[in-house]
């Protein structure tokens, strides 16, 4: 009865239930032992009583859930896009095939010529599948990049993320983009921006990423804490791609190694996450970039709150990307078993974007991969 552990507000934790049940049973046993000695009939009637109580308790939990009580369970996601699932499954079988024949060669069951031919054929197909998997994600990655950029520009204060998310997203956080606010309209701009991207006003100051002090735009070091203000933006773009999506996925792969996977996984993770919430309708309605951004931020918010309800220690976080990403990691993470998201393991960052329009993108991705075929 592992699930008896209720987690919501006002819910009796399962441990209490179990304690109650076993306590009662123990009491009954003690009573019987005191009166007539512990006999086998007494043992069996006690066991029956315990089972009855457990059954009724489970039934109670079940009925509560029917009528909307109890902790909210995350509903099932509505299913993956078949094309992508098919590709992932083919990838799995191809990897298995390559592994098989190399083992068979090692134990000398397959001739060198056959091995070379088969190995080449399988590897070629596997690479093709990997490429198509990437292509499949390309629209998501673009969208993710755009939306994350927008998101960071608009609502940096709203972002929160879970403890676990922070752990996973720690790397991402370090690389997260420090911004400066436009003195005219308040829009967040990149640190090295000279003009506000919203109103075009000249950005007069350069905010220190370390302590937040405002410096002159041409300052090389922070006047308060002596943090270098020059080096950072130069180092940033490569890593930043992974965290917030400033460049192309290819660039990211070259510069950031494992983080490249984050981008690849992002669209998918967000996709699953979105569907998990049953937000098809909303997402489909959200056509314009404007709406998408808003929705994305709302949904990120929702996701964080959802996390918060199950993990009270949730803390505000600086990056929406990692917040949602962690959600994608923890909740639909189980789906990884089902072959959905082999690539999601690093989906810790930059997932907010596709969160808003996952299903929309899904159909796009589907069509495009159909066309390629």
């Amino acid at each position, binding site marked *: 009865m*592992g*699930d008896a552990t209720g987690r919501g507000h006002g819910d009796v934790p399962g441990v209490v239930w179990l304690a109650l049940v076993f306590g009662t049973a123990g009491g009954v046993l003690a009573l019987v032992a005191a009166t007539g000695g512990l006999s086998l009939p007494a043992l*069996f009637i006690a066991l029956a009583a315990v089972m009855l109580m457990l059954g009724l308790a489970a039934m109670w939990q079940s009925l509560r859930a029917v009528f909307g009580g109890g902790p909210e369970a995350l*509903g099932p*996601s509505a299913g993956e896009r078949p094309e992508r*699932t098919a590709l992932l499954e083919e990838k799995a079988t191809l990897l298995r095939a390559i592994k098989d024949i190399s083992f*068979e060669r090692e134990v000398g069951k397959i001739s060198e010529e056959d091995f070379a031919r088969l190995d080449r054929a399988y590897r070629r197909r596997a690479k093709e599948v990997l490429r198509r998997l990437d292509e499949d994600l390309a629209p998501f990655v673009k969208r993710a990049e755009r939306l994350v950029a927008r998101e960071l520009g608009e609502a940096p204060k709203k972002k929160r993320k879970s403890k676990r998310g922070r752990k996973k997203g720690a790397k991402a956080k370090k690389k997260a983009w420090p911004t400066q606010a436009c003195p005219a309209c308040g829009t967040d701009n990149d640190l090295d921006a000279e003009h506000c991207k919203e109103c075009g006003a000249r950005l007069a100051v350069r905010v220190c990423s370390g302590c937040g002090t405002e410096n002159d735009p041409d300052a090389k070091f922070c006047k308060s804490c002596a943090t270098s203000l020059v080096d950072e933006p130069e180092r940033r773009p490569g890593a930043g791609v992974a965290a917030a999506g400033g460049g192309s996925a290819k660039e990211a792969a070259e510069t950031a190694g494992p983080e490249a996977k984050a981008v690849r996984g992002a669209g998918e993770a967000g996709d699953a996450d979105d569907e998990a919430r049953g937000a098809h309708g909303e997402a489909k309605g959200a056509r314009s970039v404007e709406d998408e951004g808003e929705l994305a931020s709302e949904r990120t918010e929702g996701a964080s709150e959802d996390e918060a309800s199950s993990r009270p220690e949730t803390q505000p976080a600086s990056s929406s990307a990692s917040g949602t990403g962690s959600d994608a990691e923890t909740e639909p993470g189980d789906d990884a078993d089902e072959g959905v998201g082999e690539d999601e393991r690093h989906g810790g960052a930059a997932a907010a974007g596709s969160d808003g329009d996952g299903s929309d993108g899904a159909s796009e991705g589907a069509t495009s991969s159909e066309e390629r075929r």
Partner: protein
Amino acid sequence: MTAIDIPTLGTLLLGLVLVSAAYTFAVSVAAAGGRPHLLRSARFGTFATVALVACAVFLLAYAFQAHDFRIRYVARYSDRSMPAIYLWTALWGGQDGSLLWWTFLSSLYIAGFTWWVKGKFREMQPTMFATLMSVIGFFVVLQLFAANPFQTSFGGAPADGEGLNPLLQNYWMAIHPPALYLGLTGWAVPFAFVVGALVTGRLGEAWIRGARKWVLLAWGFLTLGNLLGMFWSYEELGWGGYWAWDPVENASFLPWLTATAYVHSVMIQERRGTFRVWNVFLLSMTFILTIFGTFLTRSGLIASVHSFARSDIGIYFAWYLIGLCLFVVSLIGWRLPDLRNGRRVGWLEWTVAGVVGVLGGVFLMLAEVAVSWVSRVGVLLAPVAFVALLKGIEWLRLDALRVAPQSHHERRGFESLLSREFAYLVNNWILLGMAVFVLLATTFPLISEWLRGETVTVGPDYYNYWMVPLGLVLLFLTGVGPLIAWRKATGRNLLRAFRWPALAAVVMGGLHLTLGSEVGFPAFVEPNRPYETLTGQVLGSIYSVMPLLSGALCAFVLAAIVQEFVRGAQVRRRSKGENWFVALFELVARARRRYGGYVVHFGIVLLFFGFTGAAYDLEEEASLLPGETMEVGEYDFRYERVVMDEDPNKRMIYTDLTVLKDGSPVARVQPAKYVYRSHPEMPTTEVSIHTTSLHNLYVIMSAVDPQTHRGTFRIIKQPLVLWIWLGGFFMLLGVGIAIFPKISELVELVGGRQPSRAGAAVASALLLLGAGGALSLTPSVASAQSDSSSSLHAGTVVIRDPEERRLFSRLLCECGDCQRLPLHTCGCSWAEGMRAELRGRMERGDSVEAIIEGYRDRFGAGAIAIPSDEGLDRALWAVPITAIVLAAGGLIWRGRRWARAGEQHTTEAAGDDEGAGEYDDRLEEELRSLEGD
């Protein structure tokens, strides 16, 4: 009288279980239909149902312990003198209680599954819960309306119960039925996976990975159950054998065959994404066969030593089976376009259906049975109607409702017929062939009765003759499969792989031919025929060379397995520089399913080795006075004395015999008879077995005269029986290796919190499993069937004459009590008298055939152990054998087409590798992260 009204409470509880199961079913269906928040309700509903079933079981256990004889079931299967342990085993001692016990064991699986599945397979979960609840629901309905274990006795509670049958009062009753039930009920979970995958349309490889461990677990328990069944039969029933092809044994053997086929063919799907329909079919079939087996034995339709009293639950099972089959067929039909990547039911299906129908019609014609034209047309059209049903569902889906088929990645055929994939298909062919054969033979009495109103008996010898060639083919394939490479084996490498095993087989065969007779295991045994026709002669010849073939094949497979381990370890030694032990350990640890499978194969080899010994069984029967000696092979048995003993429960009469070899005593055996006070009319026979690695000496005391102390003994020298139990142990060990979870999986199972606890739980469960196997190795004294109140006869009676043995093996004892035992094993007085009478006729020069004919005229066709080789009886073997041969042809024909397609594809795909260089590293990375196996 107890204060609580237990019968009412129990019936109420069963009703509650039904309500709970129905509620959970409804909630699950709702959850599947777009209300995902109800999944939690379904989960808890499942737990509630399971807990309530457990409550009902404990309540019944209480009623037994408290002697609540108001309950009819308690009154019939227990009495006040029974010890507590048998009061517990009486829970499954009769029909009604064993149904409850069956439900309980199912619900244990369901509880484990529900716990395990949390957070996995969210989309499939509701459907899976609904499926499992429907199974529970059916069994509860059965109990509530047809076989209620809480039913009260008519006319109030008797003062004491009738007591449990003495046969069932032994410790094997505590082990054997639960193990077998665990093996049978376990298939509900894999079936739930199938239904979940089909309903939700997640037909990829995900559900297969999820179901893998559940399948292996159920397979392990089914194997254990079958082995314990053999052991129980050997130790308890006292007829000197371990497998009698009884309907109950067949009922658990059939799902074992299909499940074994699935375990192999699923590996092709994991590697290629093909054979989806086939795997779904095999797994559904396995589940349906477990239900079908229960139906066969519970309905009393077919006579069996295990059969429960004829009851009216058969009709419930029949309807459930029909519903189940229709459901599965429609479901598969609905998903057929997805499973087959959009390909429609085509000319191939129609052709196969047509051929099957025509063959059926031809057989009916040849059978010269007066069947109504409705039946004839029915047999002709049934396969066609089946395909038409599939076609209709397909039309509904694709043309009427226009639900587009899912696509999955393209199918690419095989690279070669000489590949492990194809070897697995051939393995599936023989396993399914055996299943069809056994199924037809088991149900033949029913078919015969339906077609011509004549009951026939299909005795163990029929199976023994026909299964020998099939089993040898299976054994051969067991060795060949691992030798062939995945994907493509090439001539030279194949030769290399086959070199040592083939050499081993030749050496073994040579040794057998030259030395076999010297050590008592000649290469050929006396030919014996089941029929007097050509078929009978062919079968007889195969049977007579069976020891030679079997020995050589055992050596072949053994060498192949050893070679696999050695080669794998060599690779590790070369690449990792490990020493032999480390390399072997790492090899197995990294690919546990593969090498666990080889260990199972090793067990199979030992099993076959043990079966071969049955060809050398030597049986002697003698009536001796104390001090006299009888000779069985190279052993002498000196009858020493009679020892009487008594305990509150029973009177015991032991007879001491000393076993002598070359004049010196090697062992003492003590067969006995027990007379229970509650059942004085049913004395039980205690078999005494002396086990050595080469021979088992199976000593049965048929009767002893209390005055003169003259004892009648039946002694069977059975070579190599020990190896069967050893083989069983290795099979279980192999399954254990294959399913033992990784530490990370254990951590995941308990939500990442208490790995130690879950580890302990799983490990102990596996240990129990192994211990069951190990336990089966301990020779023991056992109480056996009451087989004789035999009149004493003087002198030594030996069935050594092959003609005599052939005759008696084909006639069944007709005394009324031991219906299914052939005359050459039955020890009852009627059989003894009949043997004497028939011996007289043989001495007068009557031919075996004439005597059999006479016996048939006297007692009816049901008294002949092997159906004749003419008319409808011929269809019994001709239909499955034709099917097997046709299927082999079809398989090779299809296989060549697959191989051509695959070859072409590979040639195309292996062209120049342009660009894509950036993916090389990623591919390497992915390959490294892929686990072994």
